[in-house]
């Protein structure tokens, strides 16, 4: 199996995640897309940990750390989202526009 296919898969997922963050209106889906971007980075790390120039386990360990970070980020993001929802009864990311100038 070629390493290029794994890298291409990660690249596609990364870009789709970025698309989601930029264009989605439902804020929960925006958070989801963010997780997808972090996952794409993890696929890369794990791929290189098997097929890189210097294959070793460090990549997998780094990926595990990223899972921790991503989970923490998702929890905090969702909590803030609930606070916003209590304030103004919407989670439409397009309406989060009080701050501008």
């Amino acid at each position, binding site marked *: *199996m*070629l*390493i*290029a*296919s*794994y*890298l*291409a*898969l990660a*690249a*596609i997922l*990364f*870009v*789709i*995640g970025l*698309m*989601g963050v*930029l*264009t*989605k*209106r*439902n804020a*929960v*889906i925006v*958070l*989801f*897309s963010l*997780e*997808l971007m972090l*996952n794409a980075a993890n696929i890369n790390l*794990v*791929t290189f940990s*098997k*097929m*890189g*120039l210097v*294959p070793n*386990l460090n990549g*997998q*360990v780094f*990926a*595990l*750390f990223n*899972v*921790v*970070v*991503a*989970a*923490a*980020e998702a*929890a*905090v993001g*969702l*909590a803030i*989202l*609930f606070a916003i*929802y*209590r304030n103004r009864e919407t*989670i439409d990311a*397009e309406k989060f526009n009080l701050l501008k100038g």
Partner: protein
Amino acid sequence: MEITGEFIAFFILSILAICGAVFMIFFTNVVHMGVSMAFTFLSIAGIYFLLNADFLAVIQIMVYTGAISILMLFGIMMTRHKETEEKLNRPIHYGLSIAGAGVLLVSLVLLSRGATFVSDAVDTKGYGIEKIGELFFGTYMIPFELASILLLVALIGSIIIAKKEGQE
């Protein structure tokens, strides 16, 4: 390219992962989006199995497919939302985002195709959970401890922000 079991498995899993992600972009029903993302995360776990990252694959299923997907679905259910999602009302932003993402996609995929420098045959016998544990509690002990504080902080933060006021 010869067709091996790994190739077939990779083909199916990556199709599933990409379809899940693409459907997330194009579905209009928000719950469907969430479920299709869960499928993507599950397929990524399969990819990890292919790459001899068994422990990570299990973690992926537990954390992403399990915890995070459910958390997000709860997030969708507990907030009032439009059943169907409309497009952004900002055409310039939308167009620029698609164009930028397209350019990034093409360049990254072209880049991946150039990855010919790597060694394909690796001894992955040592890639077990024991080795991972040794790394965690040996070399990476300090970031590991730091990660525990990070989780504590995230816990405290989520509670104080999401907690409903007015009840003790």
